[in-house]
């Protein structure tokens, strides 16, 4: 113990406080770097054997993470992303059925029955007959167009899912590479904090795409399971692909490097992929099915009544629409080919006796508007259509509520995680002052020791 030791203490202190300043500087510099986890300078008293010299040494850099909070953030991010992707798909579906904004089938349905009514008033007026054909043609065309748009959207959702799967594969391989570099760094004695920051950010990005579960296996390797199947294990990564089953349903497959594949479609419950899958296989399927049933029911009821009457030529048994189904009815409904260009075939009269101005059948056609012809003969045409629109509205409303709820939970989880891992500028400024003052004091200590030594030298 002596002045020499004092110089040693001052040296250690300068180094340690300098290191503190350096770490604080890193934190300030990276305050807005995505994925950056706050570092802390880990200082400890220097012990050499059992003797206490009172020195300080740098033990290393602390990286403030909480695996539990990270996992919660990943999960919340997954659900938030799935809610958003489903909601945006439903926004488009709703747009097809928004009668208040001028789309939708309500006006075409009104026009169809309105044309029957006008026909009943003036059955042998060629204009009324042509108008009936035009309304029927327009009704069929609107349904076909809506069905086509739904089909296009179904295809778009698949394309989006495929693009997302490609991103998942890419992210997984980057994570695997980083895992490799991290273990190399750790073997070399470095702490690899920056690499871990990058990797954890990528894991967060991955969680946005698909529901994941992460854990560290016995050998210390990070394992990531996507929708239940292992996607990344240490420095090995599998690929994620999306294709369709023979029935046209979206299939999500994890493909290992050795060629084995796992179908994880049913387990893909969150992330962008989960949302896309739910929108495509649950929401769109239901909407399509209801639209098909509506088109089929209306066309069939109109056909039956129309066939019961006769055209101006006295011939009956003609259909107004051609439709197949119920499955695929919306895509197939057309004005019957035999009726095209033949307004005189429109069956306004119920028999050839009441030609040309008999309107019994036209009245019966018009009255179908108030008859329970749809959904197993329990609903009128407009009721069935309003049920469809109500169902879409309900789906879109709940998906929008889901987005709000899920993103609030995600926000909260992020805040919790950041309260451990995030940089707080106030705190860093305080730390900066603290290290600065300590550094100044250490300099003073050095000068004092130096002066003491100088005085001592002079006294010789």
């Amino acid at each position: 113990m002596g002045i020499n030791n004092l110089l040693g203490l001052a040296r250690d202190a300068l180094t340690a406080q300098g290191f503190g300043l350096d770490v604080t500087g890193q934190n300030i510099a990276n305050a807005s770097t995505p994925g950056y986890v706050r570092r802390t300078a880990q200082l400890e008293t220097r012990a050499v054997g059992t003797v206490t010299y009172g020195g300080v040494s740098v033990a290393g850099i602390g990286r403030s993470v909480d695996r539990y909070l990270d996992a919660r953030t990943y999960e919340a991010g997954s659900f938030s992303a799935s809610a958003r992707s489903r909601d945006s798909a439903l926004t488009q579906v709703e747009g097809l059925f928004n009668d208040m904004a001028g789309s939708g089938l309500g006006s075409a349905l009104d026009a169809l029955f309105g044309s029957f009514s006008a026909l009943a008033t003036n059955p042998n007026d060629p204009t009324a007959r042509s108008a009936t054909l035009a309304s029927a043609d327009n009704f069929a065309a609107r349904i076909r167009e809506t069905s086509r748009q739904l089909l296009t959207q179904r295809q778009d959702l698949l394309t989006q899912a495929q693009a997302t799967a490609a991103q998942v594969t890419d992210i997984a391989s980057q994570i695997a590479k980083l895992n490799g570099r991290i273990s190399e760094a750790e073997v070399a004695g470095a702490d690899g904090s920056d690499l871990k920051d990058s990797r954890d950010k990528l894991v967060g990005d991955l969680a946005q795409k698909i529901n994941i579960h992460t854990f560290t296996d016995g050998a210390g390797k990070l394992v990531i399971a996507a929708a239940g199947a292992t996607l990344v294990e240490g420095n090995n990564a599998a690929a994620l692909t999306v294709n369709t089953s023979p029935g046209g349903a979206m299939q999500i497959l994890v493909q290992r490097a050795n060629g084995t594949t796992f179908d994880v479609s049913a387990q893909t419950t969150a992330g962008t992929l989960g949302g896309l899958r739910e929108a495509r296989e649950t929401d769109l399927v239901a909407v399509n099915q209801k639209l098909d049933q509506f088109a089929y029911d209306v066309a069939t009821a109109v056909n039956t009544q129309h066939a019961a009457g006769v055209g101006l030529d006295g011939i009956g048994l003609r259909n107004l629409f051609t439709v197949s189904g119920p499955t695929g009815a919306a895509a197939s409904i057309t004005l019957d080919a035999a009726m095209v260009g033949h307004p005189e075939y429109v069956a306004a009269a119920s028999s050839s006796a009441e030609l040309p101005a008999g309107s019994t059948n036209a009245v019966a056609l018009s009255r179908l508007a108030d008859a329970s012809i749809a959904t197993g003969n329990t609903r009128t045409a407009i009721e069935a259509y309003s049920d469809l629109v109500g169902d879409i509205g309900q789906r879109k409303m709940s998906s929008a509520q889901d987005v709000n709820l899920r993103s609030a939970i995600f926000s909260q989880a992020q805040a919790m995680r950041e309260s451990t891992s995030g940089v707080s500028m106030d705190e860093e400024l305080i730390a900066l002052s603290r290290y600065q003052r300590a550094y100044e004091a250490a300099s003073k200590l050095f000068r004092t020791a130096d002066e003491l030594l100088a005085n001592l030298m002079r006294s010789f």
Partner: protein
Amino acid sequence: MRIADTTRFRNIQDQVTRAQSAHAEAARQASSGLRVGAPSDDPVAAAQALRVGHSMARTGTFRNTISSLRGDVELAESTLAGADDIMKRLHDIALGAGSGTLDAKEQAVLATEVAALKDQLVAFANQKGSMGYLFGGTKTETAPFSAGGAFTGDDLDRTAEVGHGVVMTVSTSGAKAFTVAGGRDVFSDIDDLYDAISTGDKTSILASVNQMSAGSRQILAARADAGIKMARLDTADATLEQTSVTLATQRHGLVEAEPAQAYSALAQTQHQLEAAMSVSKSLLDTLASATAALR
């Protein structure tokens, strides 16, 4: 809880975004006047509004039907009134011819008048409306009566739907007004009168007096029928008018925004947005001043 800077910035962003979307929604309601702008705004109300909208369209269709039919029914009624006048004149001629003694010249004059009146009656019976011949049943494209008065039309009804589930006959039967279907063949009775006057057959002339009044009653009955149809159309129209007002009110309640409410919501969300902006500004200032301490 320790608050990281990123948390603060995100909170500010979230709050401003929330206030902005609430403001945008209030602005949409105030500017469009619609509380429900898409099915998801209120699925139950949107579905009901569709049904109400459909009923409104149907009501409109029925009212169009009524207005296009009313003209022809009115024309049928007034034509039959004219036909009845002719029958009354024929009745008077028959009565006059039967009570006195006529010379050959007077007989010829009266016979000519009877023939002219018959022609006029045939013309009335062949009256055309906006949708073809009025009294031919469903045969609206060909004149239902020949010049001699032979009927080529039918006695089938033309019907129309004039209200939810209300189907009524809108044609006036020429068969019942002028042919044996209504009791007597008016034109052949007139022919008989013509023959009786031409030949001076008193017994036949007196028989014709009763036939002419029977014909008149027959035409009057058809005219009354047309009058009843007009009244029914008017009643149906008045009911539909009432219905359309009720439906419009219903629709208003379902999807439209109360202007006062919409504007106050707009003002409120505007204040909220301004508050969120000014709070975020002061928070950002605080962060900035903390950073300024570095200098």
